[in-house]
């Protein structure tokens, strides 16, 4: 049966090579972000434009290459030349772009680079500043192949890890993963090989393997991108893990907000089974493995492993004390191993290329790569994969291209609601589990949100604690009540009613919540508050003592005003104002009635002359007492 795989790979390579040599192919970036940015409309424009000519062009949908800020993106392949990437497209750009490219003129404003070696003076995309510092292991296929075409996956080295694993004993596979140094990418960083060994050694049958794709961190979409962009990789990782642990049933727990990821997984699982990689007697061996998908139902706490298992069992997703650990008593009381999507996705590469190869990437304590979603106020937003040990500065400035719109950098938030905000002087920190934790943030699952001087750190802390307060399952009172109290205090501070001692109360509450919560949700919920107090205490004090928001983000502490010098009286703001509180004659300076203003910001975004500004407007005592007036 090993021969069978050989035949399959040969056939797959033929399919892949035919596509590469086919001449005219247009690849469409069709992950969720591409769709959100409008690839469907661009695709329609392409089809329409092609229908007017006689070129036979194949359209292939691919996943996300990670350069989300340039979506919608297409890669145009002509002749035997490597595909050329174009981004930031609108349907109206298509006729000119395609006519140009098919006429031999590749250069235009949308050009990003060549997938492969550059030619005709065109730069390789791998030399693009956003891509050059990256090391792509988990994301090596994403955006480069049709995610549901198993031949594409096979031709690019797919299932070779599984083949090698099946030629080893399960203990050898566990040992290989252990030696690779792979640590759990869900956030905690527990060595994956050790987790596997515990479950393998545990008594009881059947055993379960669960892939945790309940990516609930707001600001994070790594798992979605991987599942959408390279589903076979995750499937292969699950099968290898199943073999190593000795279980024949695996479960994907995917959040329901990711319909495209679920759809692609379903297609790929069926295809993998048809080709003998999944199901009974995998690749002709005695090993059998079944995979199923469970859809999450919208509960952040279900990312916690005991809550996740409760959810699969049809219960409220509430965590329980550990021990017993899932490896001893997990799903339905049986030994269970749970790994994050990124951990599972690292496994095929480790088995294919070997533990030593993987261990050579990254740092001594944290091997391999980290996948981050860089988002927020940064020029290059997207999904990146970097070697562990890279500095935050390299990520923000080189890969991310610096802060957008000429604003200044204020903080980078890692780890979502469990993480923290780091200021500019911490940008030299290296990315690994230990250094980020020591600085008060965490590695987390991979969300990285950049904030500029227009973002208020008190508001950000309030945002995160509101999230965890809402998502707290309510089992442990310190988490249930403590997060509510913290939220109320932050609310009080952001509306200008903060008092001396509030920060100390916040810190005291934070330590109670951390100490008195059963699971990581409560255990880490205060981190965003603590880290912002630690690094941005001045900003808190400005809210409390002076009743001003230095970032001018807290609505209760600001007012909108129009600069009469700059205002041309174009009336655009007045027409856009939802409460009609802007008055003025055409071609004359306009005025905002601050009492009627709801501070929605429509005037600022609609003004073309930079004439609308936010100013400090501390709430006055009499307004407080309901006597109206104010200023």
């Amino acid at each position: 049966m090993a021969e069978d795989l050989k035949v399959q790979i040969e056939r797959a390579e033929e399919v892949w090579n035919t596509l590469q040599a086919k001449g005219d192919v247009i690849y469409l970036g069709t992950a969720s972000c591409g769709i959100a940015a409008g690839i469907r409309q661009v695709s329609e424009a392409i089809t329409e434009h092609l229908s007017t000519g006689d070129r036979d062009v194949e359209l292939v949908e691919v996943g996300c290459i990670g350069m989300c800020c340039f979506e919608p993106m297409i890669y145009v392949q002509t002749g035997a030349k490597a595909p050329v990437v174009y981004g930031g497209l609108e349907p109206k750009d298509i006729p000119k772009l395609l006519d140009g490219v098919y006429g031999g003129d590749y250069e235009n404003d949308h050009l990003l680079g060549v997938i492969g070696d550059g030619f005709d003076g065109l730069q390789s995309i791998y030399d693009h500043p956003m891509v050059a510092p990256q090391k792509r292991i988990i994301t090596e296929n994403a955006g480069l192949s049709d995610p549901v075409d198993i031949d594409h996956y096979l031709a690019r080295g797919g299932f070779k890890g599984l083949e090698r694993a099946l030629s080893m004993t399960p203990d050898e596979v566990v040992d290989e993963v252990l030696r690779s140094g792979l640590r759990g990418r869900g956030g905690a960083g527990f060595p994956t090989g050790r987790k596997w060994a515990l479950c393998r050694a545990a008594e009881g049958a059947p055993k379960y393997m669960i892939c945790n794709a309940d990516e609930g961190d707001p600001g994070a979409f790594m798992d979605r991108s991987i599942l959408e962009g390279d589903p076979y990789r995750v499937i292969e990782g699950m099968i290898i893990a199943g073999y190593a642990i000795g279980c024949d049933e695996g479960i994907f727990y995917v959040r329901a907000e990711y319909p495209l990821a679920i759809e692609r997984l379903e297609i790929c699982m069926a295809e993998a089974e048809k080709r003998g990689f999944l199901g009974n007697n995998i690749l002709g061996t005695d090993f059998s493995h079944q995979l199923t998908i469970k859809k999450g139902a919208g509960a952040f706490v279900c990312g916690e492993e005991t809550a996740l298992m409760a959810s699969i069992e049809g219960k409220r997703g509430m965590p329980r004390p550990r021990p017993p650990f899932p490896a001893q008593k997990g799903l339905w009381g049986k030994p269970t191993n749970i790994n994050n999507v990124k951990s599972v996705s690292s496994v095929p590469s480790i088995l294919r290329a070997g533990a030593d190869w993987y261990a050579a990437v990254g740092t001594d304590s944290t091997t391999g790569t980290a996948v981050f979603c860089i988002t927020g106020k940064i020029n290059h937003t997207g999904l990146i994969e970097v070697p562990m040990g890279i500095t935050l500065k390299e990520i923000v400035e080189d890969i991310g291209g610096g802060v957008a719109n000429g604003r200044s950098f204020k903080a980078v938030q890692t780890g979502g609601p469990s993480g923290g905000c780091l200021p500019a002087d911490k940008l030299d920190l290296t990315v690994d589990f230990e250094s980020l934790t020591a600085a008060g943030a965490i590695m987390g699952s991979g969300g990285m949100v950049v904030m500029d001087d227009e973002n208020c750190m008190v508001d950000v802390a309030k945002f995160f604690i509101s999230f965890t307060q809402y998502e707290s399952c309510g089992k442990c009172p310190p988490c249930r009540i403590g997060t509510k109290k913290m939220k109320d205090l932050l609310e009080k501070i952001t509306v200008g009613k903060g008092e001396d001692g509030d920060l100390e109360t916040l810190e005291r509450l934070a330590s109670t919540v951390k100490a008195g919560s059963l699971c990581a949700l409560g255990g880490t919920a205060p981190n965003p508050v603590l880290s912002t107090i630690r690094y941005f205490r001045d900003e808190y004090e400005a809210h409390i003592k002076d009743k001003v928001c230095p970032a001018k983000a807290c609505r209760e502490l600001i007012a909108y005003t129009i600069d009469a010098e700059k205002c041309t009286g174009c009336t655009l703001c007045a027409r856009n104002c939802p409460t009609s509180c802007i008055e003025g004659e055409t071609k004359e300076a306009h005025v905002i009635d601050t009492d009627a203003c709801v501070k929605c910001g429509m005037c600022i975004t609609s003004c073309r002359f930079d004439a609308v500004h936010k100013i400090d407007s501390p709430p006055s005592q009499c307004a407080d007492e309901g006597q109206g007036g104010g200023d």
Partner: protein
Amino acid sequence: MATDISQIIEPYRGQRKGIIPVLQAVQEEDGYISIEAVKAMSKVLGVSENDIYGVATFYSQFKFEKPGDHIVRVCLGTACHVRGGAELLDVIERDLDAKAGETTEDGKFTLERVACMGCCAVAPVLVVDDEIYGKMSPGKAKEQIKKWREVA
């Protein structure tokens, strides 16, 4: 409708683990979880109605009132938050004259806020039914709402 539901529930007869998948399938079919559906589930799954509600209300996915014809979801994840998601919600609430969680009087739109759609790179994001719209601004959202009103 009742026959549809019983077809959905039947494969899980007597199985507690069927609660969530059945709730999801019922909501897919009817748009929400009705009292009748819970009663039917209770009989077939062998789990009390009380217990089913206990599970259903734990998860934010489930709705217990009939939603509007179209569901407008405003993402308030971190990336959307720092790029003006709250302002976006504000404008839409005012335009639709419905708060998050409510349905417009004409029954055409239900407005919801979600924690993260995972499209953070193109924040702020709006989702109408299954269609995702990225790089939104209050102005663009107002225009879109006008368009949806016309087709709704």
